[in-house]
């Protein structure tokens, strides 16, 4: 295959690949398919057969048409739409170019267009597969650039190059580029903004964290792996990672009022009560006026508990999160939470929480039950820190102490069911279960544990994320209990809460995230949409707390977390090689997210610079520590003993990396030294050359002296040194009266010769003139003598 044919194929493949990259985020299949087909057709029809070749005018017309079409699509102007339309324009122009006769200009334009598509694609894409395809694209681009260069230089493009060596070169350069890219990526300093997480058209949807939740709604998001937030637990004193075990419950909202399959944090509007006509036809205004009186009398933060009265506006209840007046000193762990952009202001945290410093960006609502951020922060990533005492020995405690007793009446609220008489089946089932065990009614804890166990043991009630058909003539929870005992956590939590209430135990439903996905490398919990969860909080007065806790918890009692949701039914075991593959992909996705997509200034400092500094510091400390050297010596001696040889002990990743680094440093040092040596040697030789050239020029005067004296019959003997010859010449010249005054001149010249020849010094201007004068005098006088 000729180099140009290979180039045509590579460029067509790049065009298709760039469009695939661009359309990945939009999950748009048609356009990449069209471009891939067109690319294939262009190679066959245009490049190989030459049947379809757009000349300049049709190509220009097509390009203008594409431009006009995209301009038309731009309106109404929207940044995201504009970028997408520009990307589409790039694709259309690329299609036009593919069907033109390929010249260097066309190849360059195609490469440029595909690169621009990739640039635009980076704004929209975040996934690991995009990264893989980028690497593939890079190799294709390297091959295309190399072939384009060869074809352009060779001219005809018909030369056949050794493909094996070309591919080997591309492979080596590609690997080198990847290494360079990795080094540059981690080393390039960031300005300090949060890392770009893609051009998301809509922020993450928050379901179930509002003040009204419908049963079944949560099921829409519990299979979404999209990341919602990250939670790190650190020691507030030293900033080190605090050990956390097991799953964590991050509470968002609490829901108290249940009616017809809906949970509310507020009492349902009783419009019928307010608008109930008086017998005389007038509206009963007494209820309204009573509500207004209550609002005026009770401070806003306390009005929430007056469930029987009109609920005040939520905005009135918000207040800044004040620092705790008497913060606990022991067992405090700081939660550092980074939440992704969401469509709600609600924040999540492990309860109980407090702050030691005022954070003006945080708000408390519902008397401290709901944590909010300012509205302007909801559309972007937001990080906040809260202290908590919920961790005991690294595990989250099931009890949340209360500062004051809750309103028992609202916690025991049962639905006034219009369809049937309340929740008779649910109530009956709870009563039957408790009756079986004959647990005393005052033993709330035991009864609650029983009900949770019966609901969650998987015998009768099954966990399912699939949507279930419900009989909407009855309350959905009644349908769950009686007809179709399959559902997700909302159904289980609702059933347990209402069963507890039916048994006279105050309870409510909490909505948030239950996460057990701990990232060992990053040291944080990675909370995704699929971790959304609903559980039950049962109120335990002080006297009903377990004996061990009564000393620790205040007299107001505590909330006890009960999670009745059983584990999902185990799916069929995956194929033996799928599990490791999936694990590897997860790990890669994790590494990609953490070390590529999330690499901002803070992360760079934490993950790159700080460990590097620490590593260097510890290395230096070790080198200064005699004990370390002794340990190394012992280790070496141990390993040199053949009886201790064990292959597995000979390999260590860390050792290997350090060894490679040392080898690389040695090679670079050697090359650097060699380069410097060559540079210095070249300069020295150059100087020597110049000097010897000067010397060659300057010893010419000695030869000239020999020639002048030879005319006078004074020839240097083979055994004579120049000085002896000069002395001999001086004696001869001195012997004749007419040349006596010239007798000193040969010695003058010979001394200068010694200086140049053996002293390796250049003559200065005066000395040179002196020699020249001497030679001139010898020459003139000598010729005159000869003539005579």
């Amino acid at each position, binding site marked *: 295959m000729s180099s140009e044919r290979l180039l045509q194929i590579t460029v067509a493949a790049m065009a298709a690949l760039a469009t695939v990259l661009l359309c990945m985020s939009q999950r748009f299949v048609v356009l990449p398919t069209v471009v891939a087909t067109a690319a294939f057709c262009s190679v066959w029809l245009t490049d190989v057969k030459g049947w379809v070749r757009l000349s300049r005018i049709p190509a220009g017309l097509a390009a203008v048409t594409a431009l006009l079409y995209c301009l038309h699509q731009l309106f109404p102007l929207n940044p995201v739409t504009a970028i997408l339309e520009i990307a589409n324009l790039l694709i259309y122009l690329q299609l036009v170019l593919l069907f033109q006769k390929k010249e260097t200009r066309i190849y360059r334009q195609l490469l440029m267009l595909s690169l621009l598509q990739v640039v635009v694609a980076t704004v929209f894409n975040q996934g690991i597969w995009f990264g893989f395809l*980028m690497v593939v694209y890079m190799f294709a681009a*390297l091959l295309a650039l190399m072939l384009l260069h060869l074809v352009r230089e060779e001219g005809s493009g018909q030369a056949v190059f050794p493909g094996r060596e070309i591919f080997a070169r591309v492979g080596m350069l590609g690997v080198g580029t990847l290494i360079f*890219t990795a080094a540059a990526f981690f080393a390039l300093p960031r300005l300090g903004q949060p890392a770009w997480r893609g051009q998301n058209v809509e922020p993450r949807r928050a379901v179930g964290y509002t003040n009204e939740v419908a049963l079944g709604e949560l099921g829409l998001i519990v299979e979404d792996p999209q990341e919602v937030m990250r939670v790190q637990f650190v020691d507030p004193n030293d900033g080190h990672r605090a050990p956390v075990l097991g799953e964590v419950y991050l509470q968002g909202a609490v829901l108290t009022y249940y009616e017809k399959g809906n949970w509310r944090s507020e009492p349902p509007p009783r419009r019928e009560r307010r608008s109930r006509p008086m017998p005389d036809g007038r509206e009963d205004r007494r209820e309204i006026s009573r509500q207004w009186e209550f609002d005026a009398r009770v401070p806003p933060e306390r009005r929430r508990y007056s469930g029987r009265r009109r609920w005040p506006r939520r905005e009135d209840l918000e207040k800044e999160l004040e620092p705790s007046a008497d913060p606990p000193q022991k067992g405090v762990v700081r939660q550092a939470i980074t939440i992704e952009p969401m469509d709600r202001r609600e924040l999540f945290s492990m309860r109980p929480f407090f702050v030691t410093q005022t954070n003006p960006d945080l708000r408390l609502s519902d008397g401290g039950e709901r944590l909010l951020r300012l509205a302007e922060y909801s559309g972007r990533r937001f990080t906040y820190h809260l202290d908590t005492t919920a961790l005991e020995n690294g595990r989250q405690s099931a009890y949340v102490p209360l500062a004051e007793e809750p309103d028992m009446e609202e916690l025991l609220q049962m639905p006034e069911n219009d369809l049937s008489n309340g929740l008779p089946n649910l109530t009956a089932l709870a009563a039957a279960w408790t009756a079986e065990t004959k647990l005393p009614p005052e033993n709330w804890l035991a009864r609650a544990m029983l009900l949770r166990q019966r609901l969650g043991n998987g015998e009768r009630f099954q966990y399912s994320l699939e949507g279930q058909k419900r009989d909407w003539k009855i309350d959905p929870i009644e349908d769950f209990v009686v007809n179709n005992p399959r559902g997700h956590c909302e159904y289980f939590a609702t059933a347990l809460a209402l069963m507890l209430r039916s048994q006279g135990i105050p309870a409510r439903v909490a909505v948030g995230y239950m996460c057990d996905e701990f990232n060992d490398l990053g040291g944080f919990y990675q909370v995704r949409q699929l971790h959304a969860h609903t559980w039950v909080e049962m109120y335990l007065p002080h006297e009903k707390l377990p004996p061990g806790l009564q000393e620790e918890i205040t007299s107001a009692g505590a909330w006890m977390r009960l999670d009745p949701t059983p584990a999902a039914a185990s799916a069929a075991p995956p194929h033996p090689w799928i599990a490791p593959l999936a694990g590897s992909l997860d790990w890669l996705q994790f590494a990609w997210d953490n070390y590529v997509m999330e690499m901002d200034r803070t992360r760079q400092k934490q993950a790159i610079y700080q460990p590097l500094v620490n590593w260097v510091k510890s290395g230096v400390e070790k080198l200064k520590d005699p004990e370390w050297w002794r340990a190394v010596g012992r280790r070496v001696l141990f390993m040199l003993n053949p009886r201790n040889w064990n292959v597995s002990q000979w390999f260590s990743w860390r050792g290997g990396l350090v060894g490679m680094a040392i080898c690389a440093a040695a090679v670079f040092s050697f090359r650097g030294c060699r380069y410097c040596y060559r540079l210095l040697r070249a300069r020295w030789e150059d100087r020597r050359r110049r000097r010897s050239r000067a010397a060659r020029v300057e010893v010419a005067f000695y030869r000239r002296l020999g020639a002048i004296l030879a005319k006078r019959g004074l020839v240097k003997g083979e055994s004579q040194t120049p000085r002896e010859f000069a002395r001999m010449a001086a004696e001869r010249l001195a012997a004749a009266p007419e040349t006596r005054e010239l007798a000193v001149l040969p010695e003058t010249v010979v001394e200068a010769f010694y200086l140049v020849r053996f002293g390796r010094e250049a003559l200065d201007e005066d000395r040179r003139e002196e020699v020249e004068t001497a030679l001139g005098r010898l020459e003139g006088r000598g010729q005159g003598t000869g003539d005579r």
Partner: protein
Amino acid sequence: MSYQHKTKLTREGWFYLVVLCFVLGGAVLREINLLFVLSGMLAGPLILSLRSVATALRGLQASRTLPQGVCAGESLAVEMQLQNTRRRVGGFAVTVEDSMGLAAAGEERHSVFFPYVAAGELRKRVYHARPERRGRYAVGPLRITTRFPFGLVQREIVTGGSDSLLIYPRMGRLTRLWTARRHEAFEGGRRQRQRYSRAEGEYYGVREWREGDSRRSIHWRSSARLGRLVVRQPEQPHTRDMAILVDLYAPGHAGNAGNAGGDDLQRVERIISFAATVAADVCRQANANLLLAVGGEETRLVRGAVSSALLQEVLRELAVCEASEKDRLQEMLAAAVDKIDAAAEVVLVSGRIPQLTGDARLAGLWNTAPRRSLLRRIRIVCDTDGFFAGEGEGAEGEDEEGYRNNRATGEVRLLSQYFQP
């Protein structure tokens, strides 16, 4: 062998750098990590190109083989060799560039592209040039360049020193008139000899000893008298001996005649080209002697029995001779007259009509009978605008005077009558 190297970004490299800066700028300003990755992927090839081009030329040795005996206006094929002395790595896309030119004129560049030279391999390629002027051309040094692998960075190595290539004068075509005259002179001499010469083997005169002459034919008495070996010549030789006297007087245009600029210098070039063509013509024939005397910046004299070596020597002299601002005709004739064989045909080529007898400086030359005999045999071929062909017709001005004064010589002809460049 001198060795210089230079690395620079190509035009494509600069464009690539601009694109890279654009992408990197976007990455830094918006903190888009994927753009950082893309920037690295763009920067990598550029950085690696710097290294690659440096190693690509390592172990490559270029050389050339220059042809000999090329005349101006003829195609010249120079063979370029590229040797890859590396044991494993091949060399891709290497261009070897050569330059060729006269010192005074601009140089002409020729390049040869080697798509691939495998490890340990020697590849040869030829480039063709057509030097339009005679003279000593400086060739080289060789420049080995590569932009491999991506064409973003160029590495150039200048290797070796300059060579010189002698381009002989342009060869023209002698006209039928010249051939006829030459034939007539040869045949006429023979007829004359047949009429007037004595019997075969009879002593006719002496001539200089040539290689191949028998020792028995040496005329020892004359040799002792003349101080050089001479041999008896039994009869008047019917050789085609030729003496070409080239007068390169060009007032106001001293310097390299190869750098022809004005009319005078063009005339000089025509004269040299004619002389070279005549010399080549004579050297194609056997049993002849050739003498070339050039009166230019320097007076040069070449003579000998015709051979390819003599022709080379004659052409070398004609290739490098230069027009003179001074009139060196007398100097040239003084050097040549005694060396011209008695039977040789003598042609004086000049850009003017020289006054061989009227000029006081030249008058002294013809003081002996053989010299006067020679004067009568000199055929003047001149390349001048003021004189036209024909003996004694239409002479004007100085040329007319020169023509009258040269009545004593053989004939005077225009160059264009004998020669077509």
